[in-house]
């Protein structure tokens, strides 16, 4: 008899969830498409003037990426709840926070990572100055995991509800205001020639804290919603 | 007195602020009173129905 180890469980969970995303890869593209469409709408609303677009580029991309991720957050535990996998997950012998951490990692790497990859394209659409692009990518790389982590806590709280979309938005958005402020703020500072390290460091510190606390909080929240 | 209510031209800002404060707090204070009555009424109705079901 071989009892499962925590690392084997994490690997099994990561493999299964990535495999599931791969099998439903059409759905996985939706957030990407959403972000591109949202960004493409702005020039229609504001006119194609380069200076105007460049001014709002970083903020627009940030908002579009966060909204696109929010759109996909709802599904984080939905299918697991519907087919009973979530029950099995909660009952598994391993720390639930660790397992949820794996699920959050999968969420981030399958929704945020593609968004970061297309961010240069979005930046080009909105005429973001080339020297700001690295700052934008760094800020996105730090801010998107925060959304996955904090979002997971909120999803865990709303997991049993049939229509949680609007409520989830209401729960998540106030909590991730700082990510938007620091992330887009760093880009704006870089664009205006100011120092941009401080907000990025703040994001990093917050991310480090959230990476530890959020999975624990998500596990506790999930236990509350399931019992 | 009229001077007091005029607030030296700031009446349009000062009095609405106090009005909002008063309205919000009165609404907040009244809501539980009505809820309290409604619950007791509902409960009494439920008990009456239960009693009439037992002894028709």
């Amino acid at each position: 008899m071989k009892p499962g180890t925590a690392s084997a469980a994490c690997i099994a969970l990561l493999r299964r969830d990535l495999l599931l995303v791969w099998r439903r890869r059409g759905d996985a593209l939706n957030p990407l498409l959403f972000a591109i469409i949202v960004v493409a709408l702005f020039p229609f609303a504001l006119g194609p003037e380069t200076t105007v677009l460049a001014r709002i580029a970083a903020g627009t991309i940030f908002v579009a990426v966060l909204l696109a991720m929010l759109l996909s957050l709802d599904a984080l535990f939905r299918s697991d709840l519907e087919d009973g996998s979530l029950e099995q997950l909660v009952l598994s012998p391993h720390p639930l926070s660790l397992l949820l951490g794996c699920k959050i990692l999968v969420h981030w790497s399958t929704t945020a990572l593609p968004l970061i990859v297309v961010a240069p394209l979005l930046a080009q659409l909105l005429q973001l100055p080339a020297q700001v692009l690295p700052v934008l990518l760094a800020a996105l790389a730090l801010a998107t995991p925060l959304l996955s982590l904090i979002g997971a806590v909120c999803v865990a709280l709303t997991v049993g509800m049939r229509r949680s979309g609007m409520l989830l938005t209401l729960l998540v958005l106030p909590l991730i205001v700082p990510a938007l402020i620091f992330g887009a703020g760093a880009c704006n500072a870089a664009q205006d020639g100011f120092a941009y390290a401080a907000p990025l460091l703040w994001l990093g510190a917050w991310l480090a804290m959230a990476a530890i606390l959020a999975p624990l909080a998500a596990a506790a929240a999930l236990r509350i919603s399931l019992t | 007195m009229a001077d007091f209510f005029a607030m030296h031209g700031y009446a349009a800002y000062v009095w609405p602020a106090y009005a909002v404060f008063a309205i919000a707090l009165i609404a907040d204070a009244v809501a539980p009173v009505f809820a309290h009555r409604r619950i007791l009424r509902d409960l009494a109705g439920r008990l009456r129905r239960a009693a009439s079901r037992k002894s028709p």
Partner: protein
Amino acid sequence: MSIAAETESAPLLQARSLRFARNEEEIFGPLDFSLHPGDVVLIEGDNGSGKTTLLKVLSGLLEAKSGSVLLHGAPLTLAKLSHQVALLGHLLGLKLELSALENLRFATGMGGIRSGITPQLALASVGLEGFEDAPLRTLSAGQRKRVALARLLLVPAALWLLDEPYANLDRGGIDLVNRLLDHHARRGGAALITSHGAYAFTSGTPRRIPLRATA
């Protein structure tokens, strides 16, 4: 050593004046029973009598209103119990996009595996030889249930909590469940089964616990 002896004699699972309430409304209780190695116990009750809820309370998914659940004589905590308990609910916990084999590999990755068995062997013993790589979506409800039963065979859990294990199964499937239970009991395991009574055991007479909603 005395501790070991004590745990030896303590029942695998014990419920002591267990009650459960939802929104302050009593669902069942008080319940007293114990399960020793080799026991297969049937919980009988009508729809809505709280059978599924009881299994969830015993597995630690739901919290009892009062009373206690003891596992090997020690109070139940989620972390401890889950090594030894396998729950099969109405929802099977299987992914329809994945094949039977992929589902089982995930289960063994999560919960470990018994010695002397492989996912392939488990599938063969529930009569699904040749369906290893078919996505679960293409299988029938009964066949999916069999995959879930194969998971029970693989995962090293001494206590099985089975919610309506006979549902969706044909004659052969019902026999299969009985054979698995028999095997499990002889191996020193124990099982708690719910049923609303439509299915009869084909072999042996298990202990029965009637469950009635408390008025």
